């Protein structure tokens, strides 16, 4: 399952995507996120599944634009810590950050 966490407003589409088929629930991304925006737990979208996967915390979803901006997703010198540490490549960011804050 591909979960999009974030929001769409007048300034753009600000989403983190987590592919729960790839996610192993290892929690590495949770550890490295500077704003502690991530967590690992039950898959809320499949009530019969027992597998634990990563998600964006509920209280962070609507502010994800600001949470992720300092990590410069998509345009920084390095990938953001959560992306860098994810072995299966389950986590990604939409282009909004790069479009709004990256070098044009």
């Amino acid at each position, binding site marked *: 399952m591909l979960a999009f966490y*974030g*929001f769409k*407003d007048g300034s753009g589409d600000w989403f983190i995507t987590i592919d729960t088929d790839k996610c192993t629930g290892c929690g590495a991304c949770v550890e490295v996120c500077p704003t502690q925006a991530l967590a690992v737990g039950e898959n809320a979208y499949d009530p019969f599944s027992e597998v634990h996967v990563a998600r964006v915390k509920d209280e962070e979803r609507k502010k994800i634009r600001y949470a992720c901006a300092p990590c410069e997703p998509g345009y920084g010198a390095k990938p953001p810590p959560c992306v860098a540490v994810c072995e299966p490549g389950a986590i990604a960011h939409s282009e909004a950050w790069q479009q709004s804050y990256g070098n044009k």
Partner: protein
Amino acid sequence: MAEGTSNEYWRWPEGKWTNPDIDWKKGTIIAAGVDVGSVSSQVVVVVDGELYSFGNTRTGYDSPDSARKAMHIALEETGLTVNNIDYCIGTGYGRVNVPMAQRTITEIACHARGANFMYGPEVRTVMDMGGQDCKAINCDEKGKVLNFMMNDKCAAGTGRGMEVFADLIRVPVWEIGPRSFQIEKEPPMISSTCVVFAKSEVVGLLEQGVPENDIMAAYCAAMAHRIMELLNRLGVHEKFVITGGIAKNEGVVKRLEKELGIKTAEKKWHKPEYKNYPFDTQIAGAAGAALFAEAMVSKGKAKSVRKA
């Protein structure tokens, strides 16, 4: 979560229905789903997986009270009480505050399951616009979520966005759809995404003497466009269905279909025996919750709490 005021331009009528073909006393598992949304609340009761009754009401200031009110409406004149219910699942914006629910499940999962029940196993994409959110969901033939996207941060592209507009031009929401087509030519859409800035834009158009129907068309077109952008990011596949209050607004639905190049599925029950039952798109979430409740008991994943 606004209560009624004297000018209720945003108020969809309340609804209730009971299945005349079912005697709940003969059923084995009686399950309920309670969907407390930011703007409206629904309860659906299923008996052995068949639709038994539903109630639809405006959410008040108090989520638990709204849940109770919707439950009361659904159970009215059935003889059924909460004590006869085997399992109840809460969902929606106020799901943590549903007093009669044994557990909660996200609305995403419930809407997919509910849409599958209402429209059938060919459903692959569900778009639900609630009072304060907009969700896009792709699901499989069993109603299981394959991917999803939700916006509940920004009022644009939510029911509230349409309500604010209805209040501003003083036209009831249910009139906006039809009137938006009583125009000569499709006007350019409202350019501001933000509902607050769109309001100023609308005021400007009114002052310029643009006809009200044209402004309604422009607003519906803008909303359809935002939804289309959200959906296309996820990918839209047929059967495509829309649930929630916005499904009742043809002004947005038809323009969305045009932008996507995909028609929404006909609003009718998948099960042929349900042919004459009312089809209220707002009950999808509660229906999904009720079906999850039933499945959990029948599969032994949860214990019945039935008292009588």
